[in-house]
């Protein structure tokens, strides 16, 4: 009931990288998202098992990025490391990038657990006293359905989303349950090969 599907995600990712022999996998992780990501490099070195060793990362000075590696190793590259959540939304607005409707307000069957609004889905079993109710929500961040919370919102345009982000009192990944499993949840996932 409390299982995370992250272990599944990571295995597939790691297998794909190994099979297809990628030199680099580019991701959209940002430093402002989470405390372990705050320590990341633009070029994050991963060993043959995709493991992230925070003690083994190269210093990045000026504009000089060291992408040298041995056979079997690869890099996770994070070009928007220094972008904030607001930067991303402003860019989307400026470039008129179409985004999935799930980021905007919609009605959805939800239930509340530990203060988090979950989408009702076949992937999460309800506990005895939990009820399904229709809510007007949107998703501020998209993670696995089994562990991503929604936020109550009426924001239906990018401008409204931006105003919400500007005045919010909760971080972007605040509703990502998998980050909260332990103090070092993200750090541990990265060490096992996650982005």
């Amino acid at each position, binding site marked *: 009931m409390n299982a995370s599907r992250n272990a599944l995600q990571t295995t597939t990712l790691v297998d794909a990288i190994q099979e297809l022999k990628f030199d680099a996998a580019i991701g959209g992780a940002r430093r402002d998202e989470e405390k372990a990501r705050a320590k990341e490099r633009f070029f994050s070195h991963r060993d043959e098992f995709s493991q992230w060793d*925070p003690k083994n990362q190269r210093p990045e*000075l*000026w504009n000089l990025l*060291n992408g*040298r590696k041995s056979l079997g190793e690869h890099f996770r590259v994070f070009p928007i490391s220094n972008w*904030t959540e607001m930067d991303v939304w402003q860019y989307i607005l400026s470039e008129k990038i179409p985004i999935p409707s799930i980021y905007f307000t919609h009605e959805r069957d939800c239930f509340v657990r530990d203060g988090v609004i979950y989408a009702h889905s076949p992937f999460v079993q309800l506990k005895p006293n939990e009820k399904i109710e229709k809510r007007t929500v949107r998703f501020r961040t998209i993670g696995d359905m089994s562990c991503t919370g929604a936020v109550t919102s009426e924001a239906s345009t990018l401008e409204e989303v931006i105003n919400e982000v500007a005045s919010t009192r909760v*971080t972007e990944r605040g509703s990502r349950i998998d980050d909260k499993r332990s103090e070092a949840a993200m750090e541990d996932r990265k060490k096992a090969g996650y982005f």
Partner: protein
Amino acid sequence: MYKDFDQNKIPVKNDFSSEGYLDMELLRFTTAGSVDDGKSTLIGRLLYDSKSIFEDQYEAIRASSEKRGEGYVNLALLTDGLRAEREQGITIDVAYRYFATPKRKFIIADTPGHIQYTRNMVTGASTANVAIILIDARKGVIEQTKRHTYIASLLRIPHLIICINKMDLVEFQATVFEKIRKDYEAFAGRLEGNDRHFIPISALKGDNVVDVSQNMNWYKGPTLLTMLEEIPISDDYQKGSARFPVQYVIRPMNEAYHDFRSYAGRISGGTFSKGEEVRVLPSGLKTKIKAVFLGEEELEKAFSPMSISIVLEDDIDISRGDIIVKAEEPMVVTQELDVMLCWMAEKKLELQGKYLLRHASREVRCVIKEIKYKVNISTLENEPENKTVGLNDIARVVIKTTAPLFIDSYSQNRITGSFILIDEGTNITVGAGMIS
């Protein structure tokens, strides 16, 4: 720790405007210091008063602090992202934090203050526009102050803001502030590369950090945040010789762009405009700029540090590693470099050792010809007899490269005057260098 850091009072932003957001300037500044100086309190205060601490972040660190049995909410936990850091109560790496005011966006590169983290400070300082030097008003200038100042000067961070903190513990006395300022200038006067500003603050109470202090009417200068918002940064990039190291040659060879060829890179100094005459190095050939592109948008003029692509009038053979400059702004071409080196690896620097040198977008092999002296960063004295250069050491070294490089001195340009050394066997970055 914070008397008035009340969760119920976390201010909420309600004055946000998207207009001009993407054009806002970005200021990067470093903060270095130990827990005792109140550095974390200062950062926490900046984030808190600029409405950049989120409720759940606060809640998470409150829970953490409680779990650890601390009697207060330890804001250092905001930046100690790694388990090892939180367990040992120290900051191991460079921690990046982001905040913005309506006037500017900021990146804080926060590093530990201990001498064994010199390489972290050097890393954080490499791209900083401003260094905040924190002094405890009760202690005045100490070894750490001098060391941090030296590093800021070595890395040529253009502006130093010296914050004399804990003024509340010295009864906000102007005499204390003035004495520390004098002592600081006495040793810093001979260091070059930056301008210096002094602010008396109390990070704990909030005096002169974001809000003007009610307790120091003798101080007529700006608050720290105002200074951070107003200190000029574009000059630092745009003045100076025009430098464009080519990273990539764009040649789509498709229907829409059949004969299109442009050279992509990040402008590392000065400006480039349509129609300007330029010279390509190393060939030395002259040509004119036909067009400047930012993505697919054509510009009249582009400036540092924009990432652009340039189309030239003439069909010259140019590849990654070449540099485009203005004819009247030459670069020095050399195979011998006299440098200041910060060593970043456990394994010591080897005299006659061979390394890879990465400069701008070029990589050449090199050999360490001579170690002139090591810098004692506690006393700031040069030690010519000391030739052992290990982790966190700073030394003056002569390097010979296997191929000629086009360079500027670091004092002229922080990008074309810097390089890193890579150990070919392990692939790790072992040194960071600045050309004298």
